């Protein structure tokens, strides 16, 4: 595991994240302009979709049927496990529990991309249809958790409206839209733009994006003092449980270790882009500091630094 961790830790991507955290901790004014950060995010999601769509066009339905079913199952289970732990162990109020469960029922695309890059570097690249699974795992968890919250809190909040907002949200539109464009584009047309959406440009843009994510995450570290130890334990524990679950499910439906690792990382991740506004509107009594701190300052760094190599280790163990 030593060398696996090393590959992960000594990559510019992980180190850029660490630099972002460090910069903020020493009080630096360094920060990517908000618009650049937003633009990079759009580029990364769209590029991910395009490339995934191009590769999906080469996959047979038989290959992806089982993984699709498995992913949808993960999408239903993860908000429930999160809710159960948050209520049962954490004893959080209904709104807070449902709000956090919505974040952990969805996914972090950047964690997904980091896992793709990691298994690439390990010489175990993931199958081309994984981005399709990412698109499938993004929304159901948010919807399920919000529904639980709305029912339990007895409110008549606009869940329908919010489901629409999540489905029409930028993350899903870019991912699904990119998948469709990549799928339908003529191969020669894709090749003309591929170097812009793939390879070094994609990884370089990811490096800059992670620099800023480190800065954003560092801003939340102070909140850990007020949110308390349960949230830290939850953020790490839930990642490990969902990550191991994702790898195991991936293995069970026949994914190779690289793909199973990426499915695990996806499953272990928590949303910080799609879920927050949806939760803010549907469950305004939920404290947004709790969910954002857990997903951004605990689960995200844990997965980037330790989780992904761990899921990979488990995936190779299962495959051995």
């Amino acid at each position, binding site marked *: 595991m030593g060398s696996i961790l090393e590959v992960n830790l000594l990559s510019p991507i992980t180190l850029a994240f660490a630099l972002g955290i460090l910069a903020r901790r020493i009080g630096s004014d360094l920060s990517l302009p908000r618009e650049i950060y937003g633009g990079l995010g759009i580029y990364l999601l769209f590029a991910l979709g395009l490339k995934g769509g191009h590769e999906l066009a080469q996959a047979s339905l038989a290959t992806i049927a089982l993984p699709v079913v498995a992913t949808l199952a993960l999408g239903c289970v993860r908000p429930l496990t999160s809710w159960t732990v948050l209520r049962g162990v954490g004893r959080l109020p209904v709104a807070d529990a449902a709000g956090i469960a919505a974040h952990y029922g969805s996914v972090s695309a950047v964690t997904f991309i980091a896992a793709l890059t990691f298994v690439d570097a390990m010489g175990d690249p993931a199958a081309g249809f994984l981005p399709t699974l990412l698109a499938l795992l993004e929304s159901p968890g948010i919807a399920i958790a919000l529904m639980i919250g709305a029912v339990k809190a007895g409110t008549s909040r606009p869940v329908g409206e919010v489901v629409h907002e999540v489905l029409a949200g930028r993350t899903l539109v870019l991912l699904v839209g990119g998948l469709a464009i990549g799928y339908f584009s003529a191969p020669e047309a894709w090749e003309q733009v591929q170097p812009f959406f793939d390879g070094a440009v994609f990884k370089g843009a990811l490096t800059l994006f992670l620099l800023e994510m480190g800065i954003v995450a560092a801003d939340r570290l102070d909140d850990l003092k007020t949110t308390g130890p349960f949230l830290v334990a939850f953020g790490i524990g839930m990642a490990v449980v969902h990550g191991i679950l994702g790898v195991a499910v991936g293995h069970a439906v026949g994914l190779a270790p690289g793909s199973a690792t990426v499915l695990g990382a996806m499953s272990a991740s928590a949303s910080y882009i799609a879920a927050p*506004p949806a939760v803010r*509107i549907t469950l*305004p009594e939920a404290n947004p500091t709790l969910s954002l701190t857990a997903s951004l300052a605990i689960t995200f760094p844990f997965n980037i630094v330790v989780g992904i190599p761990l899921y990979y280790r488990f995936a190779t163990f299962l495959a051995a």
Partner: protein
Amino acid sequence: MNAPPSLELHGLQLVTIVAETVLRDRITRRLQDLGATGFTVTESQGRGSRGLRTGDVPGQGVRIETLVTPEVAVRILGMVAERYFADYAVIAWVTEVQVVRGDKYVGPR
């Protein structure tokens, strides 16, 4: 102010609402229903009693201004207070102002 009559200054009220970005469209959509004829929005950042950064939910805050008659102002403030004060980072205030051709901004009653 010694405005020449040609300037047609009207006393109106300027309602300013500072809110989380997530409320932007929800609030502006309601303004018209309540009798406002228009509004102006600027981006903002802030810190308030809630100890929450307005930007806690990704995206910054917004500062919405609308010139209205006193009756409409009351309706708007009431709507904001009733719907959003309990759960959201929101603040609202009213200023007395003089508007050029202010009659344009007196909506249908």
